[in-house]
Structures are given as structure tokens and as C-alpha cells.
């Protein structure tokens, strides 16, 4: 175990010293802070507006209860943050996965590591553990920053249930980022040329993260007009569903396109937990988890398979020969 911890410690240290990783992290934080600050200030102005209206009514001698309190769901403010985690979180996974293996392969230090009395999977475990800790700390800092801005700018308080939901989103985010980590590690281990492995990782990232969700999104009839088709026709949600029920095949195809991407499952799951999808607002953690179990299974499966492949790639020392 000591050996695994030593490798993990070195992984953590190497990555936190890597400039590219730090630049990427800076991008993520700039985007997160901007997105959450905008949402928080918007949230706060809505609260102030409501309180003002209540005050005016009270001063007129009327009860403030005559205007219904708007439903404030602070976690909804995380929509932009989730979008950026989908895009840049995945790239962080790719870069960490790449650096983790490429630094050994490129400089032939893998031979030195393998000449030590290490167990069969010690290197794989050490690398996985070190990067897991790194990803978890990035996610924790991200969550803390988000919460701090929501509280300081938006004046939002989170309930215990909301904190629990946030915890589950963190767990899903960990699976998601580590899927890209493991997947890229496998490619770098298997490919003779390191840059080619990186290019293929980016192609997969492009397909999963951007192209498939984008196709699904643009195939949605409601997305064809800015503001939404049904809104422009003054059609309510239940009626919209009724109409769309007649286009089952088209919707099934559209759904199948989206379902093939790990990113879409991660998005559906986190949007449900955070209440960005309105129908899940105010629902218990148990209800959301149960209703979105399908997405849980997919996200965990993508991660699990990639992790298995990484260990599988490490099982033989033959990957040593695959250095350019």
C-alpha cells in the first residue's frame, strides 16, 4: 500500500506543477465564477424585487400574501457550471490521463518503475488514486467557490437536501471526469505515438461532449426557433407533449442519438438533481435518484469499463514495447 501511496503522491505533485493543467483549471474557474456570479446577481435582484413588492403592499395596508412568492431554487443557478464541467471537466480528465502515462513513456521512466519490486497493478492503482484525489479536490474547490458566490452575491442558503443533491452531483462529476482520465490513459498506453493518442482522445471528446448532444439538441422541433416553437404557437406544455407523442419514432431516434453519449447521461442526471429540469424541483433526493437510475447506470458503466480497460492494459509488461 505504501508503494501505491508513493506513486499517487507523485502523480498529484506532477500534475499540480504542470502549466497546461493549471491553465485549464484557470479557464474552468474563470468560467464558473462568471457564470455563477451572473446567475447569483440575477437571483438576488429577483429576491429584492419580490421583497419590494411585498413591502409596497404592506405599506398600502394589504397583506403581502396576495402576491405568491416566486419559487427560488438556488441550485438552478448551476446550469452554466454544469455545462462547463461537461466540456472542460472532460478535457481535464483527458489531460491528466495523457500526462500520467505520457510522462513515463516519453522519457522511458516506465522501465525504471517496472524494474522496482512493485505488484502487478501497483502502478495503475497509484496513478488512479493520485488523479482521483486531484479530481476530487478540484471538484470540491469548484463546489465551495460556487457555494460561496451563491451565498455572498445571491444571498442564497442551501438546505440539507440541496447539499445532499450537490454531493451526488459531485460524485457523478467524479465518475464523468475519471471516465475521460481512464479512457485517455488506455489510448496512451496502447498507441505507439503519444500525440496520436491525444488526437484520438480529442476526437472522442468532440463526438461525446459536443457533437452528439448538439445533434440531439438541434433535432428537437422546439429548438428550431429562438424562444421555442411551441411558445411561438402559444401551446402549453401538456398539449406539447400530446402533439409530440404522435412523433414517437422521430423522438426515439433523437433520444437514441443522445443516449449514446456519456455526457448526455451526466447532464440529464445532474440537471435533474439540481432541479434545472423543472419537473424535479422540490423532489426528494431518493425520488430523483430513483427516477434517473438509468443515467446513473450509464455514467457508472462508462467509468467502470474505462477503469477496467486501464487495469487490463497494465496487466502485461508488453506495453513497454509500444514506445516510439
Amino acid at each position: 500500500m505504501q508503494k501505491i501511496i508513493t506513486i499517487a503522491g507523485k502523480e498529484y505533485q506532477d500534475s499540480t506543477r504542470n502549466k497546461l493543467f493549471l491553465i485549464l483549471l484557470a479557464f474552468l474557474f474563470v468560467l464558473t465564477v462568471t457564470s455563477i456570479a451572473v446567475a447569483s446577481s440575477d437571483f438576488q435582484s429577483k429576491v429584492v424585487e419580490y421583497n419590494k413588492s411585498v413591502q409596497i403592499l404592506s405599506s398600502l395596508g394589504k397583506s403581502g400574501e396576495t402576491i405568491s412568492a416566486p419559487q427560488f431554487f438556488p441550485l438552478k443557478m448551476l446550469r452554466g457550471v454544469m455545462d462547463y464541467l461537461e466540456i472542460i471537466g472532460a478535457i481535464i480528465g483527458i489531460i491528466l490521463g495523457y500526462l500520467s502515462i505520457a510522462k513515463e513513456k516519453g522519457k522511458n521512466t516506465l522501465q525504471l518503475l517496472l524494474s522496482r519490486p512493485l505488484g502487478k497493478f501497483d502502478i495503475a492503482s497509484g496513478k488512479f488514486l493520485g488523479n482521483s484525489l486531484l479530481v476530487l479536490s478540484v471538484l470540491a474547490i469548484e463546489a465551495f467557490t460556487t457555494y460561496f458566490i451563491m451565498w455572498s452575491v445571491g444571498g442564497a442558503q442551501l438546505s440539507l437536501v440541496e447539499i445532499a443533491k450537490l454531493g451526488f452531483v459531485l460524485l457523478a462529476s467524479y465518475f464523468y471526469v475519471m471516465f475521460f482520465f481512464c479512457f485517455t490513459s488506455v489510448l496512451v498506453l496502447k498507441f505507439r505515438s503519444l500525440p496520436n493518442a491525444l488526437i484520438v482522445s480529442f476526437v472522442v471528446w468532440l463526438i461525446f461532449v459536443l457533437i452528439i448532444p448538439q445533434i440531439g439538441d438541434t433535432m428537437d422541433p422546439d429548438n428550431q426557433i429562438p424562444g421555442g416553437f411551441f411558445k411561438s404557437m402559444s401551446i402549453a406544455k401538456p398539449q406539447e407533449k400530446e402533439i409530440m407523442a404522435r412523433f414517437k419514432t422521430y423522438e426515439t431516434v433523437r433520444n437514441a442519438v443522445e443516449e449514446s453519449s456519456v455526457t448526455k447521461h451526466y447532464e440529464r442526471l445532474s440537471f435533474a438533481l439540481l432541479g434545472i429540469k423543472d419537473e424535479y424541483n422540490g423532489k426528494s433526493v431518493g425520488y430523483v435518484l430513483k427516477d434517473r437510475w438509468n443515467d446513473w447506470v450509464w455514467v457508472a458503466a462508462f467509468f467502470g469499463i474505462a477503469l477496467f480497460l486501464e487495469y487490463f492494459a497494465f496487466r502485461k509488461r508488453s506495453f513497454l514495447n509500444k514506445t516510439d
Partner: protein
Amino acid sequence: MFFTIATVSKSEIRSLIRQKTFVLMLAVFLFMASFSAYIGWSTKNTIRSVYAQTVKEMTAQGIKEIPNNPFLSTPPLSILKNMVVYVFLIGSLMAIIIGHSSFIRERRAGVSKIIFSKSIGKWEFVLGKMGGIFLALMLINVISFALSFFSITIIFSHFLSISEAFNLLAFYGTSLVYMLFFAYLGLFFAIVSKSESLALLAPVMFWIFISFVMPQLTSALDPTALLNPTSIQTPAPQNNFFQIAQSIIHPFSVSESYKSIGRSLLQGDSSSYPLFPLVVYLIVVAGSCFYGVKQFNICEAEIDQ
């Protein structure tokens, strides 16, 4: 002089065609070019039926004032609107890889010393590379143009008018400029970087910054909205930070500029941007390539992975 430049360009195209990663990306891009027409066509058909169904429901409910079909007036080229996003995403990333591999090839092969012991100057060599990249990207855009043209003619049974064909041509012309910018960015980092991975990751970082960070800082649009070709330019939130950020960053936000031009050419959307920021970017990055190669140390040209 022209002969040696042409030799480098020719060799560049030959090596690109032989590269598996390039062929893979090209296949993805061309597939998406054809697929975007199909998606547009299938969505348009569905939306027609959805409209008809909606009208039926509304009539059944006794509603008399039924809005006109909002898709009736959409121009035929708009079925290709996804192409704007594909050039913005796949095209630019592919261009980075083309530019990157173009100069890395010599550095990886370790032939720089031999090349520059022949009667060819550094700037002639880089001009040859840039010419090769230009020709390769032009070829890709010409093929995409042909694919788009024929898919509209065949799938949509619509023969493009001269002005529509011109718009389509102008769209691929703008796409060529946009892709060239990223390709030369890849070329620049391939010239100046010490390691091959850094040479690839550095332009990718720029790509992320230009494609996602800049638009977020100027308009606070969600990334999903950035990828939806239908969403129009929304004004930035009314607060000091965005007003300052927008006035400083917006003229440089080349990805927004490209998407806006692309949209206006394909959809007749009026919110257009001038082409010149794109051209300025291209000139700056091309100039950087010449500067980079001037400083390039031939004797230490070989590169680590």
C-alpha cells in the same frame, strides 16, 4: 524560388493524405457535412408535420387565430445551419491538427538539417507549408461545398439559385478563413514548441479560450446556446462587468464573429459581423509563423514527444 515552395506544398499534401489521424478527422468532418443536410431535412419534415398537427389541435379547440407556420419563410440554405457549428467545432480542431502535423513532421523525422542545407530559405519553406495547408483546407471546403450543394439538390429537390449558390460559396470561403487561422496557429506552435505534446496542447488551449471562454465573458451565453445554430445573439446582461468585458473582448471574439457571419449567410440572419477581425487574426498568426521560423534553431530542431 516558386519551384521549391511548390515542392514543399506538394509534399505537404501528400503526407497529409497518408496520415491516419487526418483521414479520420476528414471523414468525421465530411460525414457531418453530409449529415447536417440530412438532419436539417429530417427536422424540417418533422416540424412541418408538427405544425400541421398543432393546427389540427388548435382548430379542434375552436381557436381561430392560428399563427402562420414560422418555418414557411426559412430559406433553403438554412437546412445546412448545423454546418456553422461543425466548422466551429470539428473544422477548427481538424485545422489545428493539420497545421501541427505539418511542421512537426520534419522535426519528428529529424530532417531539418538536411532540408536547410539545400538551397531553400526558412521563409520559403514555411511559405510552402502554409501553401500546402491552404490547398488542403481549400480542397476540404470545396468538397464540403459540393456535398452541401448536391444534398440540397437531391434530398430537398431544390436547385440553388445564383444568389443562394453565392451565399453557400461565401459561407465555405469564410469557413476556409476561419479554419486557416486555426491551422496556422497549430503551425506556429509546432515551430516554436520544445515538445510535440505541448505543440498540440497549446493551440488546443487557444481553441478552448476562443471558442468557449471569450463568448462566455462577453455574452454570458450558456455553452449549449453557443452550440445551437438557431439561437441568435443575445445582448449581454446589463452590468458593469459585462459591459466592460464586451467592449474590450468582443471585437476579438473571432468565434462569435464566424458564427454570426455563417448564420447570416445560411439563414439570412441580419445580425452580421464584419469579416475583418477574422482576417486580422489570420494575418497576425501567419506573421507569427514567419517570425517563429526566423527564430527557429535548425540545429536543435528535433523534438521530443
